[in-house]
């Protein structure tokens, strides 16, 4: 307990944002308790109502409560974003580490694949992939993962290559350590901190990309409560019912800011080398 308190005292900023993230997850988990109404039940007659005491954020074109929808949307956006980041983190790290450690043809194959991926504008390729596979949040995650893993792979590879020819690695090889053991005990620990920081700062960006795909109609599909999709639905009502765009937009903004600041402060915690 004392340890935790000490940690909090030492890393006030990080602890604060971490608390906010916990709060976000709490909101997502307990959405049914927090949301005053069912986000999918429509009341056609009461469409496009301005925010009032009954509907805090107003209602949308089908008379659904926007506050409830914004709350429920966290149940789609958060898990999807975290899964996405986890996928590219794991895939990128493994592939990058292998490429860096073994070199030769393994390196060539993996890196040329990654070159192919980054030679396209990321979002355009993601739109193409999502377009071919059909619109769904799952496919959107896959599409963005396909174009984003290469960043992690390149990072991991360069970090591994930096220590690949250090004496202690040769020493481990000479003393008969198995390759798997070396990868796990020498390579990964060297790579992980930097990649974790990258992943944490990426959460916000990835969330934006997912929302972007949904906005364009390649992600979540109606009637799902998803921030990007809600923004798109509100687009045509911008002049008369701006609350349809303001609140989902605000939700995206807040969540992205929280994750970005968390990523920044995580760097301060893990990466002690700077300053």
């Amino acid at each position, binding site marked *: 307990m004392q340890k935790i308190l000490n940690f909090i005292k030492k890393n006030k900023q990080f602890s604060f944002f971490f608390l906010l993230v916990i709060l976000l997850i709490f909101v997502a988990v307990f959405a049914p308790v927090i949301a005053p109404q069912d986000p999918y039940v429509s009341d056609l007659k009461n469409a496009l109502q301005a925010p009032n005491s009954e509907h805090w954020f107003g209602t949308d074109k089908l008379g659904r409560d926007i506050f409830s929808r914004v709350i429920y949307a966290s149940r789609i956006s958060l898990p999807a974003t975290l899964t996405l980041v986890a996928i590219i983190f794991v895939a990128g790290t493994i592939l990058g580490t292998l490429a860096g450690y073994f070199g030769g043809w393994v390196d060539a194959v993996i890196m040329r694949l990654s070159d192919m991926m980054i030679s396209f504008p990321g979002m355009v390729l993601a739109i193409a992939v999502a377009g071919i596979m059909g619109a769904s949040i799952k496919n959107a995650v896959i599409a963005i993962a396909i174009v984003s893993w290469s960043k992690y792979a390149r990072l991991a590879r360069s970090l591994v290559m930096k220590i690949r020819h250090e004496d202690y690695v040769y020493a481990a090889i000479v003393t008969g350590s198995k390759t798997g053991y070396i990868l796990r005990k020498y390579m990964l620990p060297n790579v992980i901190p930097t990649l974790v920081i990258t992943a944490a700062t990426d959460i916000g960006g990835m969330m934006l990309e997912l929302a972007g795909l949904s906005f364009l109609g390649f992600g979540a599909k*109606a009637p799902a409560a998803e921030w990007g999709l809600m923004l798109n639905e509100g687009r*045509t009502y911008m*002049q*008369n019912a701006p609350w349809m765009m303001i609140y989902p937009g605000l939700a995206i903004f807040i969540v992205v800011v929280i994750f970005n600041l968390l990523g920044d402060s995580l760097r301060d915690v893990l990466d002690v080398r700077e300053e």
Partner: protein
Amino acid sequence: MKKMKKFLGIMLAMVMAVTMLAGCGGSSKESSSSDNGKTLKFGCFSYSESLDPANMINSAWCSSRYGIGECLFKYKDDLSVENTICDEYSTEDNKTWVFHIRDGVKFSNGNDVTPSAIKACWDVLYANKTGSSNPSKFMDYESITPDDDARTLTIVLKQAKADLRKDLAYPVFVILDVSGDYDLAENPIGTGPYALTSFDSKTKATLVKNKYYWNGEVPYDNVEIDFLSEDNKALALQNGDINLVENVTSTSDLDTLKKDDNFNVSIGQGVRTGFAYINEKGILGDDTLRQAVQMALDHKTMCEVTVGGLYTEGISVLPSSLAYGYDNLKNPYTYNVDNAKKLLDDAGYKDTDGDGIREMNGKKISINYITYENRRLSDFAQAIQTQLADIGIEAKINSMDADREWNKMVAGEYDLCDSNWITVGNGDPTEYMANWYGKSDANFCNYKNAEYDKLYEQLDTEFDEAKRAKIIEQLQQILINDAAVIVHGYYNSSMISDKTVSGANIHTADYYWLTTEIAPAK
């Protein structure tokens, strides 16, 4: 050093933000004022890359909409026809038709419109076999004989027709000059009030007054057409970039414009019906289910609230404004959620596994609903989805582009399929009603009713207008009784102008936009 970098970074971000914002605003007002009120700036969606009437149905419409081309006849607002280039006609057996061509009508290049010039034009249009709007679909003739001295055009049809004038008023029969070098796609020369001077389907077109116009004074010297996206139309008008715009489809924008005294909004019930085909080869082949679906839908609220009055509600596939006996039609499946539920309960379609969705013969009642983004159809789809959920029917919406939807419809891979048809495009609903005719190629919903087929076949031989109307009324009632179509409503077209323009009204037939009625405000 580090501070310096940070400072530079912040400065850079600020400069970028400011320049981005600067790009958004300004730049409008000064360009809008027109030279002494004689230039009209019209904004519209570019429906066609070409203006060649035989190329695509939209091309034919556009040539008429922009005031370039005219036909022998013109539809009035009740879809009857009036004379334009033809001033007299006669027929004895409905097979041989003689049309007299008005004296003094000239193309915008000064050439005379003679009967042989008209035939030459149609020959070119009929010869275009690559386009999808070949006029042969509408008029199959044995011979066309021009007589320039008598100024008559004699058409002998292969099969008698009730009223050939209605077909000839359809814009695929537009009269264009094909003497000398002609370019129907980008520079058609017609008899309308305006003549094209430049055309780029992606950005703009310019037109000038047709000096030789036969029917009175042309109010504007110049017309500039700006091709806009649906989303920009209202904004362009509000900014003053244009004076006149067609069909603002965002109800929110339309509302704003209606409330603003600076604009005139003309809304007219057109001849377009928005509806969803019901595929009877799927789960919706079940009569009870179809009837329950009909009862579950609150069309009044959908038309008035969900799409904000962009549609007028109605029970039949033909618009209530047309003279096909709409008022005599009766709907046995009026909106009543409780009755819908009871009907399903009585049929034994109950929710047994507690997931909120009823089962039919042990299988979940799940409907595959395909739709596309056009004239708010997908909003209807979403509203219907939630209403069906209320009575325990699941609808899965699949929104796609128009071409893919069309292919799925032709392939029959759907339960409900949103569609939007011009019902009396050539002044008569026969072609449209073939959608439910058992032997038609256009019957994509697998609907079959022997009584309907028999009545429909009578339309081929019945030429008396009143009797035809009665038959068509019966056809509509049969479809209603069979719960064969989900009718969303009748689409209302709009034409919106600012205060510099007068007489900008929308017509029932959607082929007349830039008419001579539109003039500078006094």
